[in-house]
């Protein structure tokens, strides 16, 4: 038995099944409705739970940031088995850029207790800037491995298969470290009824950016305009009657690809 404490960065996002909307006054994504746990983060939570289970002892702590004190997505991850959460809830952080987010989350890590490993998704499903895990690692002065498809801890080293353009690399990295995981890395568990009930009373510590010593919450980018993309001309949509494959053959023929 060894001790393994893992911090998982999670994000609560608007339900991606619903059409996204921009706030007309700020042109940023509307996040005022119900928020759910980003599915991309459920893989990291599952991986962390498995690593702690393999080690035999330890816990999974969540860190998250939200412009309001929304916790429903955090409760989902707590119901999966995470022990506690630190939520940075601060209206000043609405529309924060990735760098500010990384500074804030790195600050929240300081409130989360001792850790061996920090896991994050490679990118969120709503903003998908895709830089926060590496930025956090740099703020914390840690090594990092992105795009992990497998993670195994071996003593004070983490071994990761990292996706590449052509396949994958095996990477060995000293702990503590930040590892970002891709979707599909593990099959996330569904919270059990017992887990859902237990999650209601698990501790969620809510702090502000100022509590973490992150004083400057401004970002050096602004949205100047939003326009409609040029639409593709409407194509021909036909119901299959058993002969439509001929339409495809003719289409390919016209393009001289066959």
């Amino acid at each position, binding site marked *: 038995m060894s001790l393994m404490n893992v911090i998982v960065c999670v994000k609560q996002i608007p339900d991606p099944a619903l059409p996204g909307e921009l706030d007309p006054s700020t042109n940023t994504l509307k996040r005022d409705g119900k928020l759910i746990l980003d599915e991309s983060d459920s893989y990291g939570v599952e991986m962390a739970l498995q690593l702690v289970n393999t080690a035999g002892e330890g816990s999974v702590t969540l860190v998250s940031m939200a412009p309001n004190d929304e916790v429903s997505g955090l409760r989902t991850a707590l119901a999966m088995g995470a022990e506690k959460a630190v939520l940075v809830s601060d209206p000043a952080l609405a529309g924060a850029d990735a760098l500010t987010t990384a500074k804030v989350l790195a600050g929240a890590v300081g409130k989360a207790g001792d850790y061996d490993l920090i896991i994050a998704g490679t990118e969120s499903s709503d903003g998908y800037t895709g830089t926060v895990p590496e930025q956090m690692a740099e703020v914390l002065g840690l090594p990092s491995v992105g795009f992990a498809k497998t993670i195994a801890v071996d003593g004070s080293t983490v071994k990761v298969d990292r996706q590449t353009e052509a396949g994958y690399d095996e990477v060995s990295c000293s702990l503590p470290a930040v590892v970002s995981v891709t979707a599909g890395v593990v099959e996330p568990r569904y919270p059990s009824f017992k887990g859902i009930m237990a999650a209601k009373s698990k501790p969620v510590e809510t702090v502000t950016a100022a509590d973490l010593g992150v004083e400057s919450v401004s970002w050096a980018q602004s949205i100047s305009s*939003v326009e409609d993309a040029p639409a593709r001309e409407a194509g021909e949509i036909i119901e299959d009657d058993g002969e439509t494959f001929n339409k495809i053959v003719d289409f390919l023929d016209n393009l001289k690809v066959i």
Partner: protein
Amino acid sequence: MAVNNIWVFSQANGDEATTASLELLTKARSLGGTVTAFVAGVAGGAVAALADHGAAKVYETGDLAGALPGAAVSAAMQAVIDGGDVPDLIMFPQNYEGRDVLSRLSVKLDRTVLTNSTDITVDGDSVTVQTPIFGGSKLVNSTFTGEAPFLAAFRPKSFEAAGGAGAAGELASAPVPDLGSTGGATVTAVHVEETSGPKLDEAAVVVSGGRGLGEADKFDMVETLAKLLKGAPGASRAIVDAGWVPYSYQVGQTGKVVKPTVYIAAGISGATQHMVGMKGAKNIIAINKDKEAPIFGVADLGIVGDVHKVMPALIAALEARG
């Protein structure tokens, strides 16, 4: 301050500069000012192509010796900047290495980042990038408001690579300094999962399969059709996540961006994640049983039907043509 000094994060495979590097250099030189290629690794024979696409200067870090580029190359960049060569703008490709280096550098320089962009405009001191959102149906224009260097990442195929710049390509060394605690990650083995036939992101025809195929075995139909059309097979994120095909097949936001002459989507509904990777195809054919599927919104030819009937019939018809 105008935008006078532009760096492009560049990569080479052996003596060949990557296409992404050449695309960004071509765009950089159209923005005016001096263009520098900053090569992660050894530039070697790639210097000639980098210069031909606009690089007046080429920095190379030298062999990274298995270090992941994020910490190593960002530290090398910072060392050059601290030495007095301060760029106004650094352009990165939106790929694994580019994204890691960009992220680390943003903290080192305390600068914001804008990623996933497909265009850039410079107007005096002002730099604006354009980023598609909501599956490419809207375009957001974002302007850097702080101090340079501005850091931006661009999706592959956002710009056409064009040589003929005849720039000097003067080579300079930008070694990686001691990384201390951030340098703990090392590549110990490299695995290649390339498919036979044309590369997915270069093929003239791409045939992709999605969840509508029903089960992993049915991906054979996609492979067969791709082969008949001398194209490459691709996949939606859903079936990559489900483990049906390797990640290297994935087309979309987190996979490859393709712009083939013909894209055939079989059993793919057209999630935002997927559309971003294939909307630039010249012609799109979609086969899906749900007539409300978003993929039909971008299809030039849409067949509302069962892929398990349409695909075999199509394959048989093409085989009959010989």
